């Protein structure tokens, strides 16, 4: 009940709702960081994963990259980059992208590679070009898995962007970090609630996107 009390106090304080340190500003900052990082990670991971998956080659190299990316501690990288490069957006973006590329890369590779070969052969027999096979046959079938890869990348970005407040960036993590230093537990819990809500909203968005884009046939058989 204690936590709920703090949450209630945080959200009912009107000072938290406007201005530089207001909830709307921080929320928009947070979403902006996450979107930039996700777009960058997808721009790196998706093309590589789709093409290697289509040709079924390079899986070993991809698996190696994925393990390496996962083994790198994102928080440590965040602090290290900031010490090396200085404060700013770039040292924050690097760990976020490094964090999100492995799940996107591996799931897109694996999902395209494991598409049932018979429709792919049929498409090839009909004379479709390789690029059309990839985008019109393999991609629609692989889409649910690809989206799940993007989703886990996005969730990790949302979570790590929170921690990035430690290296002096905006976003919802500010409340948690500042609150911890100011011994203001109300602020800490309020920020944590907002971040958790944002993460759940991310899940919901991906669920909705999957509902809208995955073809009904694929959904039924999946």
């Amino acid at each position, binding site marked *: 009940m204690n936590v709920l009390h703090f949450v209630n106090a945080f959200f009912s304080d009107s000072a938290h709702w406007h201005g530089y340190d207001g909830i709307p500003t921080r929320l928009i900052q947070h979403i902006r960081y996450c979107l930039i990082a996700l777009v960058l990670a997808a721009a790196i991971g998706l093309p590589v994963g789709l093409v290697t998956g289509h040709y079924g080659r390079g899986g*070993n190299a991809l698996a190696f990259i994925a393990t390496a990316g996962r*083994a790198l501690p994102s928080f*440590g990288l965040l*602090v290290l980059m900031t010490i090396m490069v200085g404060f700013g957006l770039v040292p924050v973006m690097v760990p976020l992208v490094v964090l999100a590329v492995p799940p996107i890369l591996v799931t897109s590779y694996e999902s395209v590679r494991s598409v049932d070969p018979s429709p792919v052969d049929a498409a090839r027999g009909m004379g479709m070009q390789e690029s059309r096979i990839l985008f019109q046959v393999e991609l629609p079938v692989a889409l649910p898995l690809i989206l799940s890869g993007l989703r886990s990348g996005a969730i990790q970005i949302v979570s790590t962007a929170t921690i990035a407040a430690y290296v002096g960036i905006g976003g919802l993590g500010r409340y948690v970090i500042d609150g911890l230093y100011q011994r203001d537990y109300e602020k800490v819990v309020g920020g944590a609630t907002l971040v958790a809500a944002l993460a759940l909203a991310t899940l919901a968005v991906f669920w909705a996107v999957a509902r809208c884009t995955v073809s009904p046939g694929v959904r039924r058989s999946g």
Partner: protein
Amino acid sequence: MSGFFDLPSDLQHSWLGLIGLHLREALLPVLAGLLVSLPIAQLCVRFRWLYAPVLGLTTVLYAIPSLAFFVVLIDYTGQTELTVMIPLAVYSLVVLVPAIVDGVRSVPQETLAAATAMGFGPVRRYVQVQLPIAVPAIIAGLRVATVSSISLVSVGMLIGNQGALGNLLNDANIYHRPELAVNSVVTTAALAILADAALVLVRRLLTPWMPHGTRRRAPAEAADAAEAGPEPAVPALEDTVR
């Protein structure tokens, strides 16, 4: 890089001590997660309708950012190691439950029938037939859970220096000693890779019946790397099992 291992005294640990602390904070949650997910997975195999809601619940719990999870737990468990370990255990469920369920389900029907025909009861069949066959899938899940757990412990630094090797990051900042941050990142990454390799070794020992090394176009080293990728490993391993 002078003073690479010359740690500030406020950490109250040597470098090796921090490594031990880090491993404890990272591995105990995974172990707890494994112990919890085994019965949950068995229930999901037994009652199929349970699987979807369990999967949904673990996904939702996994989505909660670690920092948010930590600070809410502070109210109950204080700024202690336990506060770091509880979320890590919860996170490991999202990987382990599907891994075990898929592994147990991948046991062929004939094998189960053969076990039953040999007079195995349900418990013995589970322990001596289903679990051993599911080992490759379970280990693949354990590897993902372990590596991400080792990486996440560092975040515990933010809630009052409970992050083992992650505490070096704070000291690097306040004492202006970047080499400490390098030390933290390199050591944590090395720990993760070593733990991963150790799990591969455990799988080799537990599954002597599986063909060693994938005899594909890849040279031996790359083949090891392929096994290092948890997601691709699962379907490939299931194929070999069948």
